[in-house]
């Protein structure tokens, strides 16, 4: 009896430990998702304007799932220590529901990240940057965001200045190709915000214009957000799976 008692105690200890980890991870997930929801990285106008949905639904679900995980982990610890069948049954069912929600959040975040292709931003930029009759406020925001982006990151366009040469654009409708092969913000600017050498910029002389594209600067934060929600959630769910299996075995072994 002593040996099986030891086994029981070890198993209980493992389950309690598992639940403690789940509780801590739940708090961490909540904190991470709150950070993503509130973080002013500055590219949000671009993401919002893509009409592809955004990271927010996945992040909001993550917040509530994190809190639920924390609460349920406490319930689980109590249930394991008391060896109560009803408590553990409630725990298992609620955990499965939380598991399903978190699964949805992870998949949404991963799918969303996949949709952020360069073509998506290219099309948005060409159709909206410096649109002469902005249809709504988000067009203005797109223009301002791109101006700030190109200024701060010393980049031009999505893939390069040739974006403005290869495709028609709203910008091209109001700015002739000979005077503005690409927007002035693509030029290397001096302290007053004027091009250092306008002819050099129009010709495309290396050193007087920004030759690399802004896609890395846009997709970087979006990548971090999406993978943070998706992969961290995935890791938590794997751990939760193990703890739940253990709890099920434990539950089926409890005698009435």
């Amino acid at each position: 009896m002593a040996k099986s008692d030891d086994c029981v105690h070890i198993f209980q200890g493992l389950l309690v430990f598992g639940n403690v980890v789940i509780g801590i991870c739940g708090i961490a997930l909540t904190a991470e998702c709150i950070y993503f929801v509130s973080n002013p990285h500055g590219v949000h106008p671009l993401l919002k304007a893509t009409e592809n949905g955004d990271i927010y639904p996945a992040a909001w679900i993550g917040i509530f799932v994190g809190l639920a995980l924390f609460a349920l982990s406490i319930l689980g610890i109590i249930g394991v220590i008391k060896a109560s069948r009803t408590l553990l049954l409630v725990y298992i069912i609620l955990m499965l529901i939380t598991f399903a929600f978190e699964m949805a959040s992870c998949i949404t975040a991963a799918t969303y990240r996949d949709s952020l292709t360069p073509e998506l931003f290219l099309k948005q930029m060409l159709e909206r940057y410096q649109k002469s009759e902005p249809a709504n406020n988000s067009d203005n925001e797109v223009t301002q965001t791109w101006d700030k982006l190109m200024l701060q990151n010393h980049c031009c366009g999505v893939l390069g200045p040739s974006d403005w040469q290869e495709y028609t654009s709203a910008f091209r409708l109001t700015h002739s190709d000979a005077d503005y092969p690409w927007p002035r913000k693509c030029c290397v600017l001096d302290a007053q915000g004027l091009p250092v050498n306008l002819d050099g910029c129009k010709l495309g002389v290396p050193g007087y214009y920004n030759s690399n594209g802004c896609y890395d600067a846009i997709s970087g934060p979006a990548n971090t957000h999406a993978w943070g929600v998706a992969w961290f959630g995935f890791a938590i769910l794997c751990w939760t799976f193990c703890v739940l299996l253990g709890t099920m075995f434990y539950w089926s072994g409890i005698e009435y």
Partner: protein
Amino acid sequence: RPHSRPRHPGAGTMLPLLLLLLPAAHGIAQLEYTPALTQTPELEGVTTASTFVLDQPRCVFREYGNADIWLVVALDQAAYTFNNSARPGTPETAFQDFPDPVRAYMTLNATLANYPCPKPAGDITVLRVGSETSCAQNATRPTCNGPLPGPGPYRVKFLALEGSEPVAETAWSEQIMLRTVKSSSSISTTGSGHSAGMIAITTILSILFAILLAGLVAMLVFWGSDSCGGSSTFSKPESVTVRRYNTHHVYDQPAARL
């Protein structure tokens, strides 16, 4: 001289003069230089949708210090039918009527002083054809260096004129094609496929969830059935053995009374 015809007094000198002039009129010097798009340094804007960039003809027109050097821009098909006696600044070579009916126009007037030889190393010496937008519609500026109206192809050559007479020309350049512009609505934003990571997450999580659901179903089906829970490894601290003992006790007592 009874049989000689009376001659005009200057006829004797005129014929040799005419003979001298004829070769000069047909003798526009053919310079061994072919205008070309700028290769060094590499320029992002060497061709745009309406402009292109040529190397300056340095050290080419050295013997023509008095000449005006003009750039002739022609449609590819009209290049070899271009008449060198065309004058710049006339309606036949006006930029504003290019490409129809004018098939070749003359622009970018310069002299040898604008193209000093040799070219200082490190300087970028180029000619941007199509950079003047202010005079593109102005018919009073027929030698305007205006933006080209289409993607081409075009050919160019340099022509040196002294007074109004052509004295030297370079070869015609290769065909110059400008950039053709695609419509931005042709960019497809859908269906880049799913990344391996997303597929892995979905598959693995679905399998795990299915296993958990199966486990839950198994739990509920075998709720409290002794056949499965026969290995009662985990016992509640107090109650179990006591209950069993009570059951036996209840059964035993009536038998004992009897």
